[in-house]
């Protein structure tokens, strides 16, 4: 390619800078200004005119040369242009692909959100059902409360009526009260006799208890555990009659059962202060605890418990097991 002429550079190198003040001092009050584009246009016009004048004189060979160069230039420009367009197409295709992938990702996200929304909807429906259930429960409770209140009011009325009736009865009975005095005196006498008999029995039991305590005191520091160990040793040694041993065995078994049931429950109560050192305290506390027979308030026996009937029973398994046992035992 030919080197292009730099008009601006040429003007700059062919001219000198004169300040406006200098021009003024020299008497110039007006100057004509030519800008760079105007100079470029003048040059192009001059060259075109010269070429036009010379074109009439251009030879065939030069024309063909010019045409050839122009053609080459055109093809070169065409290839450049086509290349640029191809690059543009490829770039556009890449962008389309990126957009396609982006759309697919968005579709997946939409699907995920849709599923989530469905799940949320399920939860919402469930919560709504639960709310409905609670509402019904509250409704039932409210109506039940009303019913109970009404019943209470009814009972209060009935109690008042009953009270009035009893008062009337009492007044009537007072009228004939004297007749009952004889019976009351008899009952009092019988009661006094029973009390006297009871006190005598109590005194006898106290005496027996004192005797037992005295006997226990004579045995010194022997603990109950030692006593039990002694009894067991006695049993193992075979002393005493068989009947006595059997009786003793039963007693020990009962005692063992009571301890097994009672110790854990009593232990918690006794060890509240930080543990119990004496094991006998555990045992005695357990025995006492078992005998307390604490009754708990409950409505458990008043309400029904879910009960089901098996359509087929265990008879087959039972018969088979019994048959096997019989065969195994024979």
């Amino acid at each position, binding site marked *: 390619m030919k080197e292009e002429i730099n008009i601006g550079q040429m003007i700059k190198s062919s001219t000198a800078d004169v300040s406006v003040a200098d021009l003024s001092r020299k008497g110039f009050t007006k100057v004509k200004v030519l800008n760079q584009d105007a100079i470029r246009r003048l040059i192009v016009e001059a060259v075109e005119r010269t070429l036009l004048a010379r074109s009439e004189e251009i030879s065939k060979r030069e024309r063909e040369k010019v045409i050839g160069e122009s053609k080459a230039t055109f093809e070169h420009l065409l290839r450049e242009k086509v290349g640029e367009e191809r690059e543009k197409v490829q770039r556009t295709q890449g962008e389309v692909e990126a957009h396609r992938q982006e759309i697919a990702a968005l579709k997946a996200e939409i699907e995920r959100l849709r599923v989530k929304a469905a799940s949320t909807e399920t939860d919402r429906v469930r919560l709504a059902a639960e709310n409905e259930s609670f509402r019904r429960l509250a409704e039932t409770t409210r109506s039940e409360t009303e019913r109970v209140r009404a019943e209470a009011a009814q009972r209060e009325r009935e109690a008042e009526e009953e009270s009035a009736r009893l008062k009337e009865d009492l007044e009537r009975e007072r009228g004939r009260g004297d007749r009952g005095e004889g019976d009351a005196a008899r009952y009092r006498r019988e009661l006094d006799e029973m009390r006297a008999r009871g006190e005598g029995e109590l005194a006898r039991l106290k005496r027996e208890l004192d005797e037992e305590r005295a006997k226990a005191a004579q045995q010194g520091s022997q603990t109950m555990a030692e006593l039990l160990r002694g009894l067991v040793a006695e049993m193992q040694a075979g002393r005493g009659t068989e009947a006595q041993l059997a009786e003793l065995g039963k007693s020990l078994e009962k005692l063992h059962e009571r301890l097994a049931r009672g110790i854990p429950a009593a232990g918690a109560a006794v060890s509240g202060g930080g543990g119990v050192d004496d094991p006998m305290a555990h045992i005695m506390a357990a025995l006492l605890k078992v005998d307390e027979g604490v009754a708990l308030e409950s*409505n458990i026996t008043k309400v029904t418990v879910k009960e089901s009937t098996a359509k087929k029973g265990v008879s087959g398994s039972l018969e088979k097991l019994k048959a096997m046992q019989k065969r195994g035992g024979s």
Partner: protein
Amino acid sequence: MDTYGKVTGPDAPREGVQVDTADRPATAAGQGATTKFELGRGLDVGTANLASAIQDAEGNVTIKLQRNAFIDIEMDDYTRNMLTRLNVQYVVLDNRMIVVGDAAFELANIFNRETRRPMKAGVVSPGEKDALPIERMLLENLLGKPQKEGEVCYFSVPAEPIDSDFNVIYHQGVFEGILKKLGYHAKFLVEGHAVVFSELAEDDFTGIGISCGGGMFNVCVAYKSIPALSFSTSRGGDWIDRNVANVLGIKASRATAIKERGVNLLSPRNREEEAIEIYYRNLIQYALENIKSRFESADGMPSFPTAVDIVCAGGTSMIGGFVEVFQDVFEDIKFPIQVKNIRRAEDPLYSVAKGCLVAALSET
């Protein structure tokens, strides 16, 4: 633990059980006034549920079921009256009103609270100070008085655990004491053995019974009704509930309710059900690996001449897809015993109570 009988014998038709869920009013003694019942009771003392079984003269088995849970609420006369009218059981203990059974579970869910549990991991809960009086009342209500002083009542106990350091002696003694106090001749039977009695008659009581409970998995390998090996692993349905509750940020009682409302492990429908499925699979994996390990280390393991059945019972086995997941996990483990079938008990929740009933009736 228990060595019940020493027997051999022929085959017998399988005794399947289907339960009619229709409620029936119960008398205070726990039985119809005019119905004549056989002597002998079965009692499943489970961490999550208590179930009693009794058989009438015609061979029908009656089951009473009670959730082994309670919750305490404020006490006042109004609440007391309302609870009785609404057929809700309560006990007053130390000036607190304690609602027991299924109602406790429902109230816990409504009030977003946890139920209190008399039992934990298969035995009496050491941390629950009100456990014993509550258990006594629940059992009294389930069993009633014996028909005759000294009537035999077999109750279930867990076998010794292989993955925890505790024994069942105290637990066993406590329930023996309660039943004796009620007038029964109390005898115990390990849970897995009870499953063998109720579910493996067709196989001459030979095979593996697993009770998948709330607190534990109880396993019994039996040959001709004799237990060759019994043990337990200390994870069950409660372990699932606790973990699901943790990951979802909800109460364990709520997790139980979700679990019981009809989940299928093969097709979880949401995040909650997915959590349940994950922990179920993990629980089954844990149990099977422990069972395998115990079998491989056992000296007294019988070598069965033919392949045997594994029967799963208990409330934890009732969820949809349980057996399929169990089979799936089982296939990945080289099990030391040849297994023919893995199946669920026909009536999983009542299987242990019925097994105890079979043991009790066989003594009369």
